[in-house]
């Protein structure tokens, strides 16, 4: 049982460890290293944000973490045990403890099941509720937990009678039904309206704080990662590899890898003055992501990188190494020990009043 008093993130134990995990898909024409040698840790009650563009391997990593697909190399251990060496009962326990919330609540709920049926099915199947009445009671509690109140109004509804935000709450309630230790949220808020998104994030935050649920939180929006994962860590993925990994405040407020900087520069700012100061194209040389089937030599980011050096970045692949309180895989950043920023973005003077 998770201890609610556990606050120091460093001393809390690793719930899930993803060690040297790779997933290589083979097609008739090519081999695609969707995930290549990824190392990540999710601690109990902690948030790990995984950010990056489409096709960078975020979802593949998440699916492997959930045990939905098997890595081609490396191990995923939950509570200290390799999940692919567990026996049937052990794997079953793992699957109840780790739950998945999908991106699209229009597709992830069974359209011909009422909310009650959706929520009570796992309770009955896993014997967490002895009879219909108990299941009903637990279902109402779950709905309260995700702020769908009064629950009686929702239990008999079908998904098509609910709005997008309500459906996503039902999907979260379903994930909570088996008392999970880890929730994998794959772009779970990206389809929601701005006003609903914050309510959703605040609700997920209360699960983390009150129930001690850990999160593997996948998003392409760094503002969301910052808001939800401030106390946790953030890993930035690019073409199947982690390129920057560290405490969220470090990664988002003081990014080191040129790719992280580009992602941050691309986030639209809810402030017309800041918007006017934006760099074109996030400072990248190209907006197109290279194909996994034909990866660039050396650092796979070098064709788009504004600080790539010929003869270095196109030849040698960088490894993750500690720089300025996080890990970064970039030759230039590692060499200059966290001060290449001036070459990418002119420093903003304090209280800048540029309005053009």
């Amino acid at each position, binding site marked *: 049982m998770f201890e609610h008093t556990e606050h120091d993130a460093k001393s809390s134990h690793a719930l899930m460890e993803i060690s040297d995990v790779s997933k290589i898909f083979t097609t008739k024409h090519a081999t695609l290293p969707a995930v290549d040698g990824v190392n990540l840790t999710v601690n109990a009650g902690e948030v790990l944000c995984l950010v990056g*563009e*489409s096709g960078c391997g975020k979802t593949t990593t998440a699916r492997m973490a959930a045990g939905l697909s098997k890595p081609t190399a490396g191990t995923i251990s939950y509570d200290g045990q390799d999940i692919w060496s567990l026996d049937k009962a052990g794997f079953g326990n793992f699957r109840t403890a780790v739950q998945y919330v999908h991106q699209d609540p229009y597709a992830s709920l069974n359209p011909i099941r009422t909310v009650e049926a959706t929520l009570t099915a796992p309770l009955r199947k896993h014997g967490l509720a002895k009879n219909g009445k108990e299941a009903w009671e637990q279902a109402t509690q779950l709905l309260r937990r995700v702020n769908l109140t009064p629950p009686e109004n929702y239990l008999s509804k079908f998904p098509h009678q609910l*709005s*997008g*935000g309500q459906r996503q709450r039902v999907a979260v309630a379903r994930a909570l039904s088996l008392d999970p230790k880890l929730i994998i949220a794959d772009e779970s808020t990206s389809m929601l*309206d*701005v*006003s*609903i*998104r*914050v*309510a959703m*994030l*605040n609700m997920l935050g209360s699960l983390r704080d009150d129930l001690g649920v850990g999160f593997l939180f996948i998003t*392409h*929006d*760094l*503002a*969301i990662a*910052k*808001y939800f994962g*401030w106390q946790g860590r953030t890993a930035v993925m690019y073409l199947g590899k982690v390129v920057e990994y560290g405490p969220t405040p470090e990664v*988002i*407020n003081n990014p080191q890898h040129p790719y992280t900087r*580009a*992602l*941050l*520069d*691309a*986030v*639209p*700012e*809810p*402030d*017309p*003055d*800041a*918007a006017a100061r*934006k760099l*074109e*194209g*996030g400072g*990248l040389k190209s*907006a*197109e992501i290279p194909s996994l089937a034909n990866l660039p030599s050396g650092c796979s980011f070098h064709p788009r990188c504004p600080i790539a050096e010929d003869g270095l970045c196109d030849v040698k692949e960088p490894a993750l190494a500690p720089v300025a309180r996080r890990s970064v895989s970039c030759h230039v950043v590692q060499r200059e020990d966290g001060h290449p920023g001036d070459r990418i973005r002119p420093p903003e003077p304090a*209280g*800048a*009043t*540029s*309005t053009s």
Partner: protein
Amino acid sequence: MAAPAMSTTHASSPASETPILSVRDLVVRYRTSNKGHVDAVRGVSFDLYPNQSLALVGESGCGKTTLGLGLLRLLPRLGSVPSGSIDYTDGQGKHVDVLKLNRQALRRWRWEEGAMVFQGAMNAFNPVLKIGEQMGDTIKAHADGRKPSQQEITDRSSEMLRGVRLEPKRVLDSYPHELSGGMRQRILIAMALLLDPRLLVLDEPTTALDILTQRAIVDVLAELRAERGFAMIFITHDLSLAAELADRVATMYAGRIIETGSVRDIFNDAHHPYTAGLINAVPPVRGELPTLASIPGSPPSLAKLPTGCAFRDRCQYAVDACATTDPPLDLIEERPLGLSHTAACLRWQDVHSSREVVGADV
């Protein structure tokens, strides 16, 4: 006349003081079963000036897409416009009553004068035709009866594709499924601009896209607008995008415009609780970590609107008078070229968006 600093309107051209689009009391009605109907747009009025960019913001179901479709008369069969007017002024200063155009004239007007970029770039293409053919069809259909040569078609298409930073050789010969979402969205923009329209309506052009792709599209749009000069109506639920692309913002709620103003007025000091709520719901990526509040509840059903102000059930400022009065747009600050700040709230004087704006000197 002192033009506001943020307006990109060409103050030198006399045409800029005549609105390109003048909408008055527009109502868009959808027929429902049992001979009933709902009004998805309930009396919207605004003027759009040449070269201006207006962001229509609001939650799903507030009527922003319906308004965009209504402006170009692209409503589905169940939709109609029972009252109101849309007055378009073309480059020669001739007025066109868009609602009275006959079918043939409407076909010409759309795309040549007013074009639309739809949400969901995949569904907007014919999947079995190459991009080059689809662009060619548009040029041929609007060629005034003459036959444009293949060379002319390729040249015009290529020029437009380069304008959205795509490689014409590769794109023209591709089928839609061979291209990424961001490329398709940019091609849609290129196609919409193919006939040099003076009005472009974009419906959530970046919603399903990645952050870097979104950035590329925002850059392309800003560049094209500076180059070619067209007026833009930009439909989005993301206020940060509005901050980047718009000169003006109009917030919609339950089929009405409830606040308008220059992008700076809206972001620095919104006076409708709904707009303020939307602004405060956007997490900032830079600076301090704020506690964000969502707007409680959900929008009312258009079929069963409450009396008085439609927002009052969700509004922390609501008083008894809100149940009886549906407030009209009150003038807060008068500005030229449709940039006046107005809000439809009885208590607008008490409402301020709380976001601290650093570095603003206007």
